[in-house]
Every structure is written in structure tokens, then in C-alpha cells.
């Protein structure tokens, strides 16, 4: 290697020592902040053996918490899918006034503290809230009950799908849909046969992230739940109760299920990214 080439190599790449030091620094940081906590969840969960772990999971209150978490996600994710597709269709395929304001408003729930997300529903539907007296007169309970939990979950996961689909559908343009319509396809046919296949990976990606947040939400749900064991406790809330009762093995046992959900989420997310890259379909729009 000539002296000049060597000189250039040095100035466009770091020395071996610096490279190694940076890699070590980055890995140490990630291991300390991500690796150790993740390992600790499972370690604590199994620290007193399989029997106690199993015991904590099949206890009725834990099972009802799992059930409520699944119910909340099973309602909020599809609700936000329908909304996300409708919003993306209107925003990406048409030109109209006030579009950027609409996009900002859709992002709003991300700017709100989870605790505040719960509070607003208490202000509306709680005993002292706007609709409180009316709801009480008709014997309907939303706050400190399952509907409140579902509402709060919908709110915190509100932007996930729309935010994924809007830039993607904007990047894809509307030529394909226009071609389908001009060849005589109906609106729904166009959507199901042209648009949906184009956005399937992006949609799935949004669903996965939306679901993880829906099942894991704590702050918002905590405010509206009322923490009634076996009735209005989701898994994260059940974890909190067990932890505050110093029942650490049970708390971490339930937490380990949520950690497993996180791992599955990351796995599926990587799989979707890989699949989208392989098929050459873009997953994200150009931001």
C-alpha cells in the first residue's frame, strides 16, 4: 500500500483501537440498559422454581388480568386499524385543505402523558364528570370499569396505524387505484385488490406495534381502572399490585409474560422488515 493510500485510509476510517473501543462502549451501554433488565425479568420470575411460577400464572386474578388485557387489545387494535386505513385513504389519495392540521391532530395522543390520557375520560365519564350524573341515572358504569379501560387504550394507541400508513400510502401515490377505477372496478374492489396488497406489510407492522402498546399500557389504564382485582385489572396493573404486596415472584411471573410479548413483537417486527425488503415492497414511506 502506498503512503498516500494509507493516509487516505486513516482519514476515512477510524483506527482499529477506536473502532474496537466504540463497539465495546455501545455494547456495554446496550447490555447494561437492555440486556441485564431483560434477563433479570426471567431470572426473578423463575428464582423460586417452576412450581411457584406456574402457581402465579394460573391463579384466578392473574387469569382474569390476562383476559382483560386481551379483550382491551382485541377491541382497540381493530378500531384503530379501521380508523388508520380511513385516515390514510383520505389523506394520501386526495388533496384537500387543512390536511397538515389533520395529520398533527392525529399525532396528538403521542404528545399527551399517559396519565393525562386517563384523566380526560375521568373528567368526561367519572362520577363528577360531564356525563357522570346522566350515566349514573341510567346505571351505566364506564370509569372504574372495562369500557373505560378500553377507551383509554384506544386513546393511547390511536396514532399507531394511521402514522404508519399515511406516509406509506403517500409514497405509493394513487396511479394504481386510478387505473383500477377507470377500468371499471368499484371503490371497495379497488381497495381490497389494489390498495390492501400494497400496504399489507406496513399495516401489519403498525398492528404489531399497536398491539404491544395496547397490551402493555399502564399509566392511562391505571387512572381509569379503579384497580378492582379480578375485575378491572389488566396484566400491567396486576404486576403493580403484586409488586406492591412484596409478592415479587408472582409479579415477575406475570411480567415475564409481558416481556415475552415484547420479544415476540420485536421478532415479528424484524420478520416483517425482512419480508418487505425481500419482496422489494417499501415498508415505510419517505418521511
Amino acid at each position, binding site marked *: 500500500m502506498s503512503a498516500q493510500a494509507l493516509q487516505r485510509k486513516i482519514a476515512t476510517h477510524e483506527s482499529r483501537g477506536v473502532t474496537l473501543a*466504540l463497539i465495546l*462502549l455501545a455494547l456495554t451501554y446496550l447490555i447494561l440498559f437492555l440486556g441485564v433488565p431483560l434477563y433479570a425479568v426471567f431470572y426473578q420470575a423463575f428464582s423460586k422454581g417452576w412450581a411457584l411460577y406456574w402457581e402465579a400464572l394460573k391463579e384466578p386474578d392473574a387469569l382474569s388480568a390476562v383476559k382483560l388485557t386481551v379483550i382491551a387489545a382485541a377491541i382497540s387494535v381493530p378500531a384503530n386499524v379501521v380508523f388508520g386505513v380511513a385516515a390514510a385513504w383520505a389523506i394520501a389519495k386526495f388533496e384537500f385543505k387543512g390536511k397538515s392540521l389533520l395529520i398533527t391532530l392525529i399525532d396528538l395522543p403521542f404528545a399527551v402523558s399517559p396519565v393525562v390520557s386517563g384523566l380526560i375520560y375521568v373528567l368526561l365519564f367519572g362520577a363528577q364528570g360531564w356525563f357522570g350524573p346522566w350515566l349514573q341515572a341510567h346505571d351505566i358504569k364506564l370509569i372504574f370499569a372495562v369500557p373505560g379501560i378500553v377507551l383509554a387504550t384506544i386513546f393511547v394507541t390511536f396514532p399507531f396505524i394511521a402514522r404508519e400508513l399515511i406516509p406509506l400510502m403517500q409514497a405509493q401515490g394513487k396511479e394504481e387505484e386510478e387505473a383500477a377505477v377507470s377500468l371499471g372496478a368499484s371503490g371497495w374492489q379497488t381497495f381490497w385488490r389494489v390498495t390492501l396488497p400494497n400496504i399489507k406489510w406496513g399495516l401489519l407492522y403498525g398492528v404489531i406495534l399497536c398491539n404491544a402498546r395496547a397490551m402493555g399500557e399502564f399509566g392511562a389504564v391505571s387512572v381509569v381502572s379503579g384497580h378492582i382485582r379480578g375485575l378491572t385489572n389488566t396484566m400491567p396493573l396486576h404486576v403493580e399490585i403484586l409488586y406492591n404486596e412484596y409478592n415479587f415472584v408472582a409479579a415477575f411471573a406475570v411480567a415475564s409474560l409481558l416481556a415475552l410479548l415484547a420479544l415476540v413483537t420485536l421478532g415479528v417486527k424484524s420478520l416483517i422488515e425482512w419480508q418487505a425488503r425481500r419482496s422489494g415492497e417499501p415498508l415505510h414511506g419517505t418521511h
Partner: protein
Amino acid sequence: MAQFKAHSVLPGFNLALGYTLLYLSLIVLVPLSALFFKTAALGWAGFYDIASSDRVLAALRVTFVTSFAAAVTNAVFGLVVAWVLVRYRFPGKKLVDAFVDLPFALPTAVAGITLATLYAPNGWLGQYFAAHDIKVAYTPLGIVVALTFIGLPFVVRTVQPVLADVEAEVEEAAASLGAGRWDVFRRIIFPAIYPALLTGFALAFARAIGEYGSVIFIAGNMPYISEIAPLLIVAKLEQYDYAGATAIAVLMLLISFALLLGINALQWWSSRKGAR
């Protein structure tokens, strides 16, 4: 009259936009407006009394100082992580890359109890700090740890694509003109990724301010010392002090909006810089 909507052959605009606006109003706008009506009922004097009380100011200070510290930590180490993931090759890199998003996927309560256990004085990590008389869990330092965890992916994910786009030719040109490696980084690479770094920082900061689940377990929650603003909202709610809770919420919302506007301005600024 100016047209509200440009002509299009595609169907479904009215249905899609109508449903979008209805759902947005019912789920987000009407509930959020309740916050402002409730505060308006307090009047300025009432709002000011609550907002300027010592405990509220202390909670806001704790929230902002710890969120800022966590965001700075993430800006520094997030940049290193992004750099390493973009520029170097090492075994297991893809796995490491996927794991960066763990804080987005892991429920905050799980992170909270785990970090509290790890950093307790007898915990795996806390024992080393305790040996040097440093308490992490149940102090503001513990809050910083939790907020650093939940904000970790932001800087990495905003810097990564921009760093990957920095053209090698420019670096080579600078090098061939005699610039050293550090000069190249300082003068060419850093200015290119600086807007993204700032955006990531702002996102991590904004997320940290509202964070609740991961913090309350490790914070110790001592009023005036380690009590964060979202926790104070919950505390007021539990005492049925709806007006107090709402006033703090509005205060936090206003601050968050200001931050959101700042982030948008940053993104606009960086896209303009990129276009130049």
C-alpha cells in the same frame, strides 16, 4: 368560491374523511377539550394558585431536570450506538439492532419493577453503587435511569438513517485534502447528523416528561424530592381533587405542545438543510 377538495376520480373521500373526523373528535378532541373547560371553570386565579404551589413547582422541576438528564445521556450514547450500527461490522449486529427497540415493546410497568429491583441497594447493579455510597433507586438518579431506558431508541432511530446517507465521497475528498479523522467527523459528519440528533433528543425528552409507569417504582416518590408531575396528577385524583389534577395536566400539555412545535420546526429545518 375556492374548492375545499381537488377533483379526483377515486371514490370514498367523504366516507373516509367523515369517519376520520368523527372518530378523531369522539376519541381525542372532545375528551381533551374537557381538560380545558374544566380549567377554564377554575379561572385564572385558581389556576395560578395550583400551578404556582410549591409541590407542583417541585414536581415539575424534578420531571424536567431528570428528563433532560436522561435525554442528554441518550443523545451521547445513542449517537455512539447509531455510529457503531451504521459504520462497523461485528457478529450479532442484526440482533443488537433489533433489540434497540426493546423499550418500545416492553410494557413500562415491567421496566419499572425490573429497574427498581436491579438498582435497589442490594440489587445486581445497585450494590456496586451502594459500595460507593451512591443510592440510585428511590432517588432522582433512579428516575434518570428509568427515563434513559424508555428513551433509548429515539436518538438511535433518528440518527441511523441520516448517518447511513452521509456520502463517503465527501469524507474521502476531505481526507484527500489533508483533513484528519477527527476533523472529518467534526466538520463534515457531525453537521450532517446534528439536526437528526437534536430531533431524537427532543423526542426522548418529550416522551420522558409524560412517562409514568417505569418511573413510579424506582422513584421513591417523595414529595418535593423524587415526585414527578404525572404522579402528582394521580395523587390529586386519588384525593378527588379533580381541579388540581386538571390544572397540572393542562400545564404539562401546554409544555408538551410547545415541545411538539419545536420538534416540527426542527424537522422542517433539517429537511430544508437536506434539500440545500
